[in-house]
């Protein structure tokens, strides 16, 4: 099977960037620094399970739901234990 990695990468960039090209560029750099170079993967790239696992973790860290079907997600919220201390504004 092939193409899954490219699809996951595209989903991460789309969801996290809200369609903003500047943020999309930043997300690409973040992915490179996390060890995934988006330009290295195409529809024909093999579904390497190690990379798929890594991308699932990256998506989780970036607050992206790979399976939601939505296209725009804000960055993840801070943990609830700290949220609870925030006053209502």
């Amino acid at each position, binding site marked *: 099977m092939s193409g899954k990695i490219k699809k996951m990468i595209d989903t991460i960039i789309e969801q996290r960037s809200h369609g903003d090209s500047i943020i999309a560029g*930043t997300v*690409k*750099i973040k992915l*490179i*620094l996390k*060890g995934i170079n988006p330009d290295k993967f195409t529809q024909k790239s093999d579904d390497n399970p190690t990379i798929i696992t890594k991308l699932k973790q990256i998506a989780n860290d970036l607050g992206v739901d790979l399976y939601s079907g939505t296209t725009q997600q804000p*960055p*993840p*919220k801070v943990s609830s234990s700290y949220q609870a201390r925030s006053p209502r*504004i």
Partner: protein
Amino acid sequence: MNVITASSTKDTIQEVIQDINQQIGDFDTKMLLFFASSKFEPVSIAQEMQNAFGNATVFGCTTAGEITTGKMLKNSVVVMAFNSEIIGDVKIEILENLNESKNEINKAFVGFENHFGEPVQNMDFQKYVGLILIDGLSGAEEKVMDNLGDLTNVLFIGGSAGDDLKFQTTYVYANGKAYTNAALLALMKPNVKFSFIKTESFCSLSNPLVATKVNEAERTVIEFNNKPAVQAYAEALNIPVEKAANRFMRNPVGLMMDTEPYVRSPQQVKGDNLVFYCNILEGMELSLLESGDIIADTKQAIADTQQELGSISALISFNCILRTLELEQKGLMGEYGKIFSEIPTIGFSTYGEEYIGHLNQTATMLAFQ
């Protein structure tokens, strides 16, 4: 004028503060950023700077050399005072335990939310900007930058604090205190446009090195291309292994974003391994780099940003100590300083540069319109 720069090469903290106070005069300072040689006792300078400019948000760090408008200095204190015309609002948070950076960042973000009235996660990256000053000997920069980048689209730019090449202890300063094993986050809401500069003077050679075995925690590559790291590095340069270390400054490696490198600099040969100033993850493909003309490339980067913003009213510069050492070796310190002679500038020579991630042999800069 919305910013004032000042510097002092006096010997004692009291003399320095008196000197800087005279240069700043009655300027209505909203935020005061300072970079100080590690020769100044850290607890005292943190306290004295806060006492002297108590109405402003005062913060800074130790250095491996200082930069001010038109000059590269040593054993000095450099200061930039901003008024509220340029910095609408600023909030400082300290990450005091870098071993728990994610929790610390969560706490800091709550502090920012309480101050600014909106979650950092929702902030507009074109209205807010972050500065990060971090212990340059903590080895924690990658993790902290990674965690920050996960949680927000607001960009944090900055540098790793130095200690004048003693490699003993570095400090960040805020709230009248000196912190070590810590990072300082300053989240700002400027009233003017701002832009980022990331400049490094390297071109990519054609020899890719894939990190096939690493010790991430130790920033060590054990194998490139399934060969002992130092052997693969030397082969790529077509030089004997014994001469590999001589080429580190001229030939670091880089993660490539199109043609732009994110530089990782080798620090030392350890057995057959290569230790870097920045971690390299297993599977990363890196390009071997060849150094170029720092002066010309930096001038071009500044000119591009001047064109983008129309003009630059203030520049905060984080210049890698390895760039500073290269400039020093080539007798170009004065010429480099002159690049900034027409722009109000503050900066320092860093033990690492921060922009989206942790970088080496790079200058990162924040420019205000």
